[in-house]
């Protein structure tokens, strides 16, 4: 485990794994997780080992406030998240262009980084994710508003309901999410983030891969993504919702790996595929 001190009390937990046995590194991939209940573990125990075995230098980190990173009270806008990613890569001396992969909000961060630094981005994969638009900010405002209302302010009731109707695991993750929402400005900051214009979105000319669960609302974004981006391909994985990364990691990881390795056909990873 590596703790990277970015100053001002912000310390990010990062994990970096690469090919073993002296195999050469062919590319660097930076994997960014989603909001509230997510952490780098969603990659560490799914696609990351297979990526490393394929010759990729894999960088994963916990966003501020998440996982084992510190939880500052403020600084949760999208631009803050992109600043954190920039600072982390500088500290890790990752200077060359990278393949960015983001799940949910992590994809929005990855895309924002690509728009800011086209020269440092080789490709972007958005898993259940989208670029930052006014519609995105409005949607996040609704979701985070509900989290604040139901979890952060009526936590006992919400946790009791989740424990009874979902699982203890989900309830525990929800407690962490409630703490993050209550003790930081995240729920206010994210909807107030600066969003991208359509021209800024279209300026991302590197290959973009969109991966969506067939039963997720976000799957409807696929045609728009392909129309607005110069080099975009989307994949819809049937029978899955927003958790497609962890539930179908073999399929999702295979599509990402074929993009990074530049192969035409998807590579099938050994790994979890719930269906």
């Amino acid at each position, binding site marked *: 485990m590596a703790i990277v001190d970015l100053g001002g009390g912000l310390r990010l937990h990062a994990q970096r794994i690469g090919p073993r046995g002296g195999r050469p590194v062919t590319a660097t991939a930076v994997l960014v997780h989603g909001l509230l209940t997510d952490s780098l*573990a*969603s990659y560490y*125990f799914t696609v990351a*080992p297979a990526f490393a075995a394929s010759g990729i230098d894999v960088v994963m980190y916990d966003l501020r406030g998440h996982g*084992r990173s510190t939880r500052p009270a403020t600084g949760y806008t999208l631009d803050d998240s992109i600043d954190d990613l920039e600072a982390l890569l500088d500290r890790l001396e990752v200077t060359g262009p990278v393949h960015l992969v983001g799940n949910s909000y992590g994809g929005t961060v990855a895309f924002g980084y690509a728009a800011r630094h086209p020269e440092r981005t080789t490709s972007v994969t958005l898993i259940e994710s989208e670029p930052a638009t006014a519609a995105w900010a409005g949607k996040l405002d609704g979701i985070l508003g509900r989290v604040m209302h139901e979890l952060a302010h009526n936590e006992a009731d919400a946790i009791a309901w989740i424990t009874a109707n979902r699982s*203890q*695991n989900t309830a525990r*993750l929800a407690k962490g999410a409630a703490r993050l929402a209550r003790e930081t400005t995240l729920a206010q900051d994210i909807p107030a983030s600066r969003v991208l214009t359509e021209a800024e979105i279209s300026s991302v000319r590197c290959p973009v891969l969109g991966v969506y669960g067939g039963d997720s609302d976000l799957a409807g974004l696929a045609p728009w993504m392909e129309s607005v981006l110069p080099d975009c391909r989307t994949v819809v994985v049937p029978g899955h919702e927003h958790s497609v990364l962890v539930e179908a990691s073999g399929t999702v990881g295979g599509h990402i790996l074929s993009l990074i390795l530049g192969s035409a056909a998807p590579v099938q990873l050994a*790994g979890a595929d719930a269906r």
Partner: protein
Amino acid sequence: MTSLNGHRTGTGVEGQEAVLADITAMLATLLDEYGLDDVEIRMDTTFNRDLELESIDLVALAGLLEEKYGNRVNFAEFLAGMEFDEIIELTVGRLVEHVVASLKATEAS
């Protein structure tokens, strides 16, 4: 024969009991962070339901396993080969068996 980091090597492959003791010590370190210092660890203890460890805690456990056993044990690869529900149901015993088997395999090669 003893390696640089003090582990027994050669014919002294660690058995199930010794590995369970190692992993119990690692879990005590992790649980201590949550103020839990008196939890009994057995072969049938589950990481998720009994110990209430989150997946990010298992990343920390992976680091502790690597410190102890080096690259002879790869916890991330072990879990990456499992389905999501299997990870939720994972027991200490299954990890112990995996570690013992991995140590034996590197011993043999």
